[in-house]
């Protein structure tokens, strides 16, 4: 159908971004194809080593699914996006396909082993989330392709993660956000993935910060080095949510807090996370 309608057609998933963009005439599609009536496009399935989410699975469904207790960072994300009403409509596939630099899902999934299944007229392909997002509002999806599923591997034993966003109020996009996923052995951090949101055109993996904590005990000194690297990796723009410098400081603080929670979760503690409001 997309191949028939051509370039000016857009897919409508939850509509919580696309409809506001259309009202502002930032988006002006000639045709809208509503995916909400596709039977069976919304599901959460648990395989041996992964969770698979149908593209039209709502944030609220993910938030309330008992299954994602195994990956708490997914709950931080799903339960923290905007407000109840938006979470009841918005979808994980739509969030990724929109690739808004301030979106929540991509930042979180950058720290996990996550793949996006893309379905088109010429067949199906699977792309890692980091390859899927190319630029602000730009993905690898061709005009005749759509997201059909998002698959997330269950992290190995000893893992813990956390996602925190700093927001002025619930319904707005965050000023900055940080996702941290660690694998601990005793006090030593064996592996780390750190992704920064809202501080660049795409989510940013803070590779130097990851290197600073990998193989280390997370002492104050180690964390200070890592946070320094986080601030350097961030590439924010000054706007109504704050100056570039301010956002660098905020994202550093978020990584620090998220790391503390991730460590506790790696030990098996249950920690409830709420986003931080200004």
């Amino acid at each position, binding site marked *: 159908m997309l191949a028939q309608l051509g370039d000016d057609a857009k897919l409508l998933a939850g509509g919580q971004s696309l409809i506001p963009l259309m009202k502002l005439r930032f988006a002006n599609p000639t045709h809208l194809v509503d995916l909400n009536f596709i039977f069976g496009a919304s599901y959460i399935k648990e395989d041996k080593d992964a969770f698979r989410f149908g593209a039209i699975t709502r944030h609220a469904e993910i938030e309330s699914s008992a299954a994602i207790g195994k990956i708490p960072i997914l709950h931080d994300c799903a339960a923290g996006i905007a*407000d109840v009403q938006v979470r009841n409509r918005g979808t994980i596939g739509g969030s990724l396909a929109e690739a808004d630099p301030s979106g929540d899902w991509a930042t979180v999934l950058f720290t996990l082993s996550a793949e996006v299944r893309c379905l088109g007229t010429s067949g199906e392909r699977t792309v890692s989330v980091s390859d899927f997002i190319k630029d602000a509002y730009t993905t690898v999806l061709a005009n005749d392709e759509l997201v059909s599923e998002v698959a997330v591997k269950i992290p190995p034993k000893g893992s813990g993660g956390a996602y925190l966003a700093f927001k002025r109020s619930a*319904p707005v996009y965050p000023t900055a956000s940080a996702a941290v996923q660690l694998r601990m052995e005793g006090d030593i951090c064996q592996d780390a993935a750190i992704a920064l949101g809202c501080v660049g055109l795409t989510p940013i993996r803070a590779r130097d910060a990851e290197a600073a904590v990998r193989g280390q005990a997370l002492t104050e000194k180690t964390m200070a080095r890592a946070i320094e690297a986080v601030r350097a990796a961030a590439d924010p723009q000054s706007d109504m949510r704050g100056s570039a410098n301010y956002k660098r400081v905020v994202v550093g603080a978020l990584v620090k807090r998220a790391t503390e929670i991730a460590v506790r979760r790696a030990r098996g503690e249950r920690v409830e996370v709420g986003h931080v409001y200004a």
Partner: protein
Amino acid sequence: MPDRIENISVQLKVNGKSYSRTLEPRKLLVEFLREDLDLTGTHVGCDTTYCGACTVLLNGAAVKSCTMFAVQADGAEILTVEGLEKNGELHPIQKAFGDCYGLQCGYCTPGLMLSTVQLLSQNQQPSEKEMRKAIAGNTCRCTGYQNILKAIQAAAQNMKGA
């Protein structure tokens, strides 16, 4: 733009009553409720998916009716503030909002009450944190929210065992 936009037939239930209509696909759900059905209790505040004044229930789930096309509600059941009252009796949530002074100008109130309906349908004894989370998508510029929280709590009390 395409040369011609075809209208779409929809059937849906609003406050228990069935409607069949042929609608322009671009019509928002809130416009349909207010302009076609004269159900003007659902308000338009910001029209940008922020304020929640347009909140209605779609198959039991709170949604912002300004951020959904009416044709997307085909086959759905919608509940608006007009559907809360039964046989001339106010709904316990409506009563609680009045009793606790959970409103001042009243513009946000229909949306807040519908968010409360969803909350109490899933959680009969919400904590303060849960109440705050449930109404985070509803902006009130008069009350400061304290009396709204009291109203939700009172409604939860009154609805126990109902």
